[in-house]
């Protein structure tokens, strides 16, 4: 990086050519993102015009009569992602804590690398594991869950149902396992940027390691940790393959988490290629557009939160 971006007083033809080539490539990326939004909106307009705003909260999904509403998959997406985050965030925090400040270097680094490598495993493998290994085991545990947790007041409603192994809760659990390495490695990177001097000062005042983690590390990285969680949420919302296998693909929204449901991504994966009527296809694209807007908002928030740490780091470096 140089202070001025042109090398010589008179840029050569090669300079102008190379510079515009690179500029076009960069603009192309902007155009693609813009194009995704415009193309999806354009193609989903028929559905929005036909059903109006009520598309968002109508639960009908009837391809035969050409009546569509997005509420069930929208709610399913939100519920499965919420379950995933509820489980994955504490786990990821623990893993990041272990790797950065608890484990000795000979253990922490390999564990961190292993987690990172596992984050690269494609989501379809998680889905297959969920379907062939986890769901049969979980089906055996479900009668116990219904009998014990299902009888609790208030909360119990969520855990009553037939022991099928697949359903909203299974989808949430598999999603949690999938985003765990992802969130953990972001948190690890975030914790690693805390200046050692700050931590050592706290230790010198007599703080225990947990107090240092709680009042120094977490205080310093709070916004970035939240940003990492939001990135995980963005990933969970749009995750297709890990969910499709285990959510049950039933067009229903029941009070019990043990019953099958659907999410936007799973619905798209299952039905899009077979959507026959134009309105059917447009409704599916409309759901895709809604998913895109939801993740866009979450991801923008995530990046803004993560950037705050980067700027703080830049200032500390000066």
């Amino acid at each position, binding site marked *: 990086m140089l202070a001025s971006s042109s090398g010589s007083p008179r840029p050569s033809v090669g300079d102008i050519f190379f510079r515009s080539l690179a500029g076009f490539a960069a603009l192309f990326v902007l155009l693609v993102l813009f194009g995704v939004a415009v193309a999806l909106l354009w193609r989903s307009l028929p559905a929005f015009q036909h059903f109006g705003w009520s598309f968002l909260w109508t639960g009908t999904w009837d391809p035969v009569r050409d009546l569509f509403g997005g509420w069930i998959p929208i709610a399913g997406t939100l519920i499965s992602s919420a379950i995933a985050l509820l489980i994955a965030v504490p786990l990821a925090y623990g893993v990041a804590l272990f790797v950065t400040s608890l484990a000795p270097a000979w253990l922490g680094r390999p564990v961190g690398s292993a987690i990172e490598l596992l984050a690269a495993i494609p989501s379809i493998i998680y889905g297959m594991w969920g379907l062939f290994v986890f769901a049969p085991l979980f089906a055996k545990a479900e009668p116990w869950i219904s009998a014990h947790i299902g009888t609790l007041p208030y909360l119990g409603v969520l855990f009553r149902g037939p022991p099928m192994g697949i359903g909203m809760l299974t989808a949430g659990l598999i999603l949690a396992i999938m985003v765990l390495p992802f969130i953990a490695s972001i948190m690890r990177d975030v914790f690693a940027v805390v200046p050692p001097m700050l931590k050592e000062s706290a230790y010198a005042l007599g703080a225990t390691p947990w107090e240092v983690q709680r009042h120094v590390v977490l205080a310093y990285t709070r916004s970035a940790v939240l940003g990492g969680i939001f990135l995980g949420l963005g990933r969970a919302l749009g995750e*297709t393959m890990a969910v499709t296998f285990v959510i049950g693909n039933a067009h229903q929204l029941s009070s019990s988490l043990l019953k099958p449901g659907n999410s936007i991504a799973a619905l798209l994966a299952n039905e899009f290629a077979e959507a026959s009527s134009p309105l059917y296809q447009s409704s599916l694209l409309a759901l895709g557009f809604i998913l895109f807007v939801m*993740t866009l908002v979450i991801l923008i928030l995530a990046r803004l939160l993560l950037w705050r740490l980067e700027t703080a780091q830049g200032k500390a470096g000066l």
Partner: protein
Amino acid sequence: MNALYARRRFWNFFHFGMAMLVTVIGLVVLLWITWTTLRFGFSALNLQLFRMDTPAPGNPGGLRNAFVGSLLLVGLAVLAGTPLGILAGTFLAEFSQGRRIGGVVRFFNDILLSAPSIVIGLFAYSVVVYPMGHYSGWAGAVALAIIFVPVVLRTTDEMLRLVPGSLREAALALGAPYWTMILRVTYRAAGAGILTGILLALARISGETAPLIFTVLNNQFWSTDLGKPIASLPVAIYQFAMSPYADLQALAWAGALVTVIFILLLSLAARYVLYRSQRS
């Protein structure tokens, strides 16, 4: 030992104990998934897998057409995406200092990097499949390229910005034009890092299923015609795993094993390249 001290010590042990427990649980589950893939995959692995095309249920078969289809799609995406990503990354690192456009592109590239892949698939459907009127390999390659580019862009940008300014100044002081300096000095200095980005991006698109389901669809037979639906490994795995037939499910696991090994090797290679360049 007073009560306050005992309490602080207790919470310290409690939290670190929980962290350790949670790490063990997380690692066990993740290794369990890997082990399942290895176990089911190896028991279904044989030479037929690479010699025969995808079968109908009950018939012997392999995944030859799916392997070739995936190689074509991923290869096209890499061919198109690599120059685009490197050039755009170069623009950010070398040509956009002090200008708002750099930050804007960087921000939106980060968004595109984490956008759900199924939405990218819908986009490819809308701009390629819909106007053409039929499913095609091209649409899948476009979708994969859109997922590929942001990763390369980001690493290229980061790696180029790590190159010390003094190297550039030395080249410019010798009278090199700016573009020669970039091609012959900064690219060479950041080469290993850029290669790492390409390998990681390749690992990312190799297992992508969602954007292929309704762009390339699937093809049970041998085909290398990108203008028509062709087979691809992730979609074949998806369809066979969802099928009720044990022989097809075994094929799916074999395919999953090949995918996982390929991706892990790529990730390890990426780490090795970066490690070697940092050591020297």
